[in-house]
């Protein structure tokens, strides 16, 4: 039988990988990663500011920096990462089947994904919510006025689920036109196939930069959902989960303590015990995680603290232009909700 089923074949391969792979009681993802010599990290197929490859193939974004932080912790070298771009639809199967070691792909933490898919969400590196973008010519200023519209959306996301909840709750008529790639959904919206495009608001800001004429569109004020985006690992390796989680916390804690990639070396002479512990000069945080004592130093030195990562990738001065002050993605001490447990 000649099978010509392109996408289907991908899933089939996964299926076969799954039924044929032997049950290795996961000795340790960390050891596997060290043996391979690089971290396989699942990212998006291109969301500027989160994970996006430039013309030379260099990846940047806050999700990319999440991968880099873990690589810095494990290898002492943030560049030892192999990026695997994934669609929303495929990401969890690829993670489950072991083709990647972690997923950092603007992925929303939900109960059914956390508990139902045998996965582990390690934290939140960006607090987001879903929104809508429309053409200015549509003369619409509120999502409540979207009636009888066609909405372009990416399949396999929380987005398509929230979309339905919102229109149903507000008794508005709509048609969801679903695509498997963000680029296709955006292009369809841009060509007039849909009247509205919807995704996480960070995604709207990012995708807008790809439209033919970004100034012709406007993001509606409503935020219709909670989208805590964060890295994900498989649920069968507690140590690996801890490594990923604390790689994130260290970046947040560093910002709170005023430690950055620029001043970290001068900070080594500090008397502050919190900073000393953070830098591995006191205590043995590395040992608990099975890492070298310099693991946290390497993250901050090579990747930066959370604030540096934020401003460089999605901050007000970038094309994405998401102001941090007043948003949840600010430290708890400055009115946001970023709060790292004590590193000790």
């Amino acid at each position: 039988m000649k099978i010509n089923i392109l996408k289907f074949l991908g899933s089939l391969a996964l299926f076969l990988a799954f039924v044929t792979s032997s049950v290795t009681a996961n000795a340790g993802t960390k050891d596997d990663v060290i043996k391979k010599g690089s971290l396989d990290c699942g990212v998006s197929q291109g969301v500027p500011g989160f994970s996006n490859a430039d013309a030379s193939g260099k990846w940047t974004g806050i999700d990319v920096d999440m991968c880099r932080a873990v690589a810095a912790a494990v290898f002492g070298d943030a560049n030892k990462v192999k990026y695997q771009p994934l669609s929303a639809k495929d990401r969890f199967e690829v993670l489950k089947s072991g083709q990647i070691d972690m997923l950092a792909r603007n992925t929303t933490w939900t109960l059914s994904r956390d508990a139902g898919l045998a996965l582990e969400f390690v934290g939140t590196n960006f607090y987001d919510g879903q929104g809508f973008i429309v053409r200015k010519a549509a003369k619409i200023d509120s999502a409540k006025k979207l009636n009888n519209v066609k909405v372009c959306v990416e399949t396999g996301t929380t987005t398509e689920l929230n979309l339905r909840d919102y229109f149903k709750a507000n008794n508005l008529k709509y048609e969801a036109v679903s695509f498997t790639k963000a680029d296709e959904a955006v292009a369809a919206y841009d060509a007039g196939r849909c009247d509205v495009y919807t995704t996480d608001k960070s995604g709207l800001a990012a995708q807008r930069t790809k439209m033919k004429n970004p100034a012709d569109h406007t993001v509606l004020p409503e935020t219709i959902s909670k989208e805590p985006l964060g890295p994900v690992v498989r649920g069968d390796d507690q140590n690996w989960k801890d490594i990923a989680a604390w790689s994130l916390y260290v970046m947040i804690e560093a910002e709170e303590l005023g430690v950055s990639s620029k001043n970290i070396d001068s900070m080594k002479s500090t008397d502050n015990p919190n900073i000393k512990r953070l830098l591995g000069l006191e205590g043995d945080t590395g040992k608990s995680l099975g890492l070298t004592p310099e693991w946290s130093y390497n993250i901050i030195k090579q990747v930066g603290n959370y604030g540096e990562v934020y401003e460089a990738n999605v901050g007000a001065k970038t094309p994405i232009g998401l102001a941090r002050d007043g948003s949840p993605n600010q430290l708890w001490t400055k009115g946001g909700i970023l709060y790292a447990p004590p590193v000790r």
Partner: protein
Amino acid sequence: MFRIDEIKNSLKKNLQLGNLVPQFLLLFVLFFIVYYFTSNAQTNMAARNISSGFGFLQTNSGFDVQFSLIDYDGSYSFGRAYLVGLLNTLLVSSFGIVFATILGFLVGVARLSNNFLLSKLSQLYVEILRNLPLILQIFFWYFVVLRNLPSTENSFIFLDFLIVNVQGAYFPKFIFTNFNAIFYGLVCALLTIFFAQYYSKKLIYERGKSLPIFKISILCLILFTTIFSLIGNTDLQLQQAELIQNFGIFNYVGGVKLVPEFLALLFALSLYTSTFIAENVRAGILSVGKGQKEASKSLGFNNSQSLKLIIIPQALRVIIPPTTNQYLNLLKNSSLAAGIGYPDLASVFAGTALSQTGKAIEIIFIVMLTYLSISLIISAFLNWYNHKIAFIEK
């Protein structure tokens, strides 16, 4: 699919002891392989704490689908979503098969025509469309042709019957009152046609006279349905989609709507497959001995009569088996739909439902089984047909 006597013969041969041992071995190996894979999958799932089972089919899907033949939205179950995908696959495949067959026959016959231009044009058609990858042709129709249609408020409108814009094509809905009458008219017409055919066969055998049975049939259909609908007071209303404005957004609502994703897939599948069918038709016609045509000429048949009554019936035996393959290919190729977002079985169920539930094994299993079953049904039907029209050798 198989002839009973063939099966009997091969069974007899196979049941000799010398043959039995290797066959049991083969069976054992097969059994072992299946057992190994299923038990391995189960252990893997247990080890990864993945719940299995088909219970999810009854829970709410939570997602909508833009194009569905049955009532569906996110409040229906995943099982219903499966049905939506299946029907969409069957819809595009059956339309595709019909169009590909008609086009294929026309092009195949035209290719053998004495008209130089016509035959060269058909050759060009076949050579171009057959040699371009199907996915590219789908993209061509979708991204190049249908994407560049005018916006909703500037739609092309043909005689108020067809509205075309970047969001799709709209036809009026046919709304009948007292449809029963037409239905009874149809039944009567079909019965009459059946008897007319029987009678005309008798006429041919007994007196060598032929009736214009095709014309009679058409006449019957028209006559009976109009008379019945007049008596039964049938009324037909055309309900075309209406342009609705909501601030600066224009949308057609109502009517029968064909989305561009469907149209692009249908065009590409029909044209691509028609080239292969055209080649089958050409080969079939060429396989009929030259003598047949000459003989029919000397019996006084004109060109179209000899094609219709002598050549095609014989050619069909050669055409049908490879054409069955093309039908199966078309069905399987329809799963390229995911590339442009047409909600077929593969993209709704093996795509969206799979990623929303994580039930990879169950879903892939269901989808494979479904494609396999449809394929087997199609080939069983065509094998039966081929067998029916085959020469009865004495």
